């Protein structure tokens, strides 16, 4: 359930994690919750966009790159092309270290790129990027 606290004061930071792998969703959720973030996980870019239209207070989107139907890059593009959503920082994760891929995502506006497997130290450096 969303909480409707008015200020950021005691409002939790709400992160949306997108990954088609159930193992990786559980892992990223645990890492984020250990840092006291509120986390919602979805298994596709499509579901992410659906949730984003309903839930306005997302502080960050963390998405896997390789997903069937809609890649993390395509999700990133959709977010950055939307006037409502473009301010939300997006982080892309991938198990493959492909410089072209990383550059494309950064050029499209991703604030960071994480190599999998993700670990707590990777995520702690993201806190300064949260909206």
């Amino acid at each position, binding site marked *: 359930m969303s909480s409707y606290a008015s200020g950021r004061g005691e409002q939790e930071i709400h992160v949306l994690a997108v990954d088609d792998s*159930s193992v*990786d969703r*559980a*892992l990223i959720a*645990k890492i984020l919750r250990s840092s006291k973030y509120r986390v919602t996980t979805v298994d596709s870019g499509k579901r992410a966009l659906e949730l984003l239209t309903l839930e306005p207070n997302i502080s960050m989107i963390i998405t896997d790159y390789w997903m069937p139907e809609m890649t993390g890059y395509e999700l990133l593009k959709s977010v950055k092309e939307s006037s409502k959503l473009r301010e939300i920082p997006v982080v892309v994760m991938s*198990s493959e270290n492909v410089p072209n891929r990383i550059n494309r995502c950064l050029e499209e506006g991703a604030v960071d790129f994480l190599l999998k497997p*993700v670990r707590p130290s990777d995520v702690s450096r993201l806190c300064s990027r949260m909206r």
Partner: protein
Amino acid sequence: MSLMALREQLNGLVNSMFLEGLLDDQFEQLQMLQDESSPGFIAELITLFCGDSERILAELTKLLDQAVVDYQKVDAFVHQLKGSSSSVGAQHVKLACVQFRQFCEEHNKEGLKGIYFFRCLRALNVVKHEYYLLRGKFDTMLQLEQRIQAYESKQQI
């Protein structure tokens, strides 16, 4: 068996898995994430991993059984399994997947298609072997954890 003996057994098992290379330092990261507020985290992740892996292995078996093999689909599934094994620290399974993917990529070499198909088949068997070996030890690990946690919650009453 006493609580201490159970803990020793569990530690001994996990240490031997690290020594044999079945687990790598990603599993250590998971151990550090598990705490009093989430005592079931590793069990949850392992359960998800095993469910996923067995589903993928079944799909791969079916795909390699076809008259015409769709190597793109095979590669996609192996990529998935490589990813989840990497996330839980299942090193041998991950490495077996890496090898498997190499054979998938090579399967198109002219004049040698038959050889690469059999290499893929063998690679799948290696992945299965590594997975089921790991799964057996994970089962033991989770049983020991459960017994330890049951003991600990009794002590708190």
